[in-house]
């Protein structure tokens, strides 16, 4: 049997170009399955991480009737927080209120519609530790007329720290107001829509511009456990509470579709790989018909001849699969620590969805075993028919074939 394996290996090495080409299909199928799996697993984590760290916390409250599509932030629908709600919030966990105000940012001859996020300096840090944010400059404080610009927005407007900008916004009552500010920071918040359309300033400063009358549009709460229960205790105060999972439901659902898509793509790649392997093995069988005849003449059983071809397919599948595992899990491990920076791509498509700009893949063992098993099985399955074909030749004819 070892001899048979040795012959199979040497046969594979005989036409290295063809073996490599066929193996490449298995390799990429396996690698893509592993990487895709790691990516899709990662995206779920990223969606939650991004929303949690940029605006939602574990629990997000919006005024009843306030849109949650991330497209519109009508200040008219904002509400003040009642004392009763504040007391409930204090009991649940660290929380902070924010007010989003749609505005027009003017810098020189450029203007852009944006959303200003007024953050409460006293409580913001209790909920948002800004880990994973990249802040160039100093995050604005209420001492000065400063603002922070989202990184994509800054790039679009070619704005830099120290630039003067004018923000034009409506007050809560509807009057137009405008004030001049200095850009004190450029922020990459790990939330593509906020980076593309977001401007941050202290709530106290935003009050001057938009005369907020004490209203808030968002309340983010940290409650890692029993979030759903906490959400129930916070409802009925004019605000609607959503858990992080509910808030990200649509994005997670999209990811589920992505998972299916991945399966289809990988299935197709492996199908192509399987066809390629079958083709390689059939070609090998036809090319080597005289050799097969000789082996039969020398007394090799048909089963062993057929096994020889299965070994060839299987060994190629195994090695290509292992290479695919190395490539795929290497990529997954790399992107697990380094992340894939999607910010520029998201800018290009003008994504307004709150998705993470950095995708970190997630490494786990199951995809590796599944992918490798899949790759090898496909390779062996694809070899069965050609192997049968090869072993069923009549030796008397085969020994003389050209």
């Amino acid at each position, binding site marked *: 049997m070892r001899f048979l394996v040795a012959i199979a290996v040497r046969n594979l090495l005989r036409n290295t170009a063809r073996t490599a080409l066929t193996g490449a299909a298995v390799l990429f199928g396996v690698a893509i399955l592993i990487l895709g799996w790691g990516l899709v697993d990662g995206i779920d984590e990223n969606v939650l991480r991004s929303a949690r760290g940029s605006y939602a916390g574990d629990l997000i409250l919006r005024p009843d009737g306030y849109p949650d599509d991330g497209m*519109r932030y*009508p200040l008219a629908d904002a509400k003040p927080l009642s004392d009763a709600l504040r007391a409930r919030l204090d009991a649940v966990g660290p929380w902070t209120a924010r007010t989003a105000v*749609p505005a*027009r940012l*003017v810098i*020189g*001859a*450029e*203007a852009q519609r944006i959303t200003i996020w007024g953050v409460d300096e006293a409580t913001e840090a209790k909920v948002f530790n800004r880990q994973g944010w990249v802040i160039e400059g100093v995050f604005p404080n209420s001492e000065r007329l400063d603002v922070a610009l989202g990184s994509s927005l800054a790039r679009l407007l070619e704005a830099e720290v120290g630039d003067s900008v*004018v923000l*034009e916004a*409506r*007050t809560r*009552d*509807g*009057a*137009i*107001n*405008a*004030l*001049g500010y200095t850009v004190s920071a450029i922020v990459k918040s790990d939330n593509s829509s906020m980076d593309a359309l977001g401007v941050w300033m202290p709530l106290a400063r935003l009050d001057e*511009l938009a*005369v907020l009358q004490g209203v808030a549009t968002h309340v983010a709460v940290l409650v890692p456990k029993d979030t759903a229960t906490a959400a129930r205790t916070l409802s009925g105060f004019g605000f609607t509470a959503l858990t992080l999972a509910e808030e990200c439901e649509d994005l997670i659902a999209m990811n589920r579709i992505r998972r299916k898509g991945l399966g289809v793509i990988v299935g197709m790649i492996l199908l192509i790989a399987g066809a390629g392997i079958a083709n390689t093995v059939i070609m090998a069988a036809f090319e080597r018909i005289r050799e097969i005849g000789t082996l039969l003449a020398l007394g090799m059983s048909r089963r062993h001849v057929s096994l020889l071809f299965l070994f060839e397919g299987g060994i190629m599948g195994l090695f290509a699969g292992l290479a695919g595992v190395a490539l795929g899990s290497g990529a997954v491990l790399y992107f697990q620590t380094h992340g894939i920076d999607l910010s520029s791509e998201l800018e290009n498509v003008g994504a307004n969805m709150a998705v993470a700009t950095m995708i970190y893949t997630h490494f786990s063992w199951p995809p590796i075993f599944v992918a490798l098993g899949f790759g090898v099985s496909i390779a062996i399955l694809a070899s069965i028919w050609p192997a049968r074909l090869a072993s069923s030749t009549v030796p008397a004819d085969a020994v003389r074939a050209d």
Partner: protein
Amino acid sequence: MNLLFVCFLLLFSGLARAVTVEEILTKIDANLTYEARESSLQMVVTKNGRTKTYRMHSFGRGQEEMAMEYLEPARDKGTKMLKKSDDLWMFLPSVEKPQKISGHMLRQGLMGSDMSYEDLMESSRWQAMYNGTIAAEEVIEGRKCWKVELKAKESTVSYPKRIIWVDQGNYIPLRQELFALSGMLLKSWTMGDVRSIEGREFPMKMVVEDQLQKGSVTQIIFEKVTFKVALAEEVFSLRWLER
């Protein structure tokens, strides 16, 4: 005691002058009210050094009704707009059904210009929205004008402050300045090339300049205006939009 007296005096003098301002605003309104009007006009929008020119055909009746159709550029040909008192509809050939423009959408610039839909719709309601004082008499483009300062009566008015320069001869506001709550100048709006058409004085050119965004200017040039037209009732209906 002294302070109270001063306050009283100020208040009294304000009331005394308000009558005049009221008069001026009434005249302006009257001047902008037509039995019927049909016009061809051009709108030139300049932003970031790029210029876009639109040509349109417009109908007006009274202060409340206005209908407009875009003729150029080809991309926007067939786009129609209808204003009936407080309501505004748009019809885009690509969308088939007329859309009502309301709420925050009214605050957007008309075809990317420096005039918002709201600007167009508010022009004839100054009396209701503002208290005014005549601040000075100044000469604009060789015409003697009253410089009138208007302060919003309510905090819900879009422009909390306006200064207008009204031609003393024909009551056309030759220049307006629109201010933010902070006092920052947002827009200037000038009217010129005043011609006498069918016995009415009419500014054939308007220029709106965004004072925040440098180089953002919108010009409206009337090519042909006529007041003596019989407009079919249908022009100011949703049916006309879809036609």
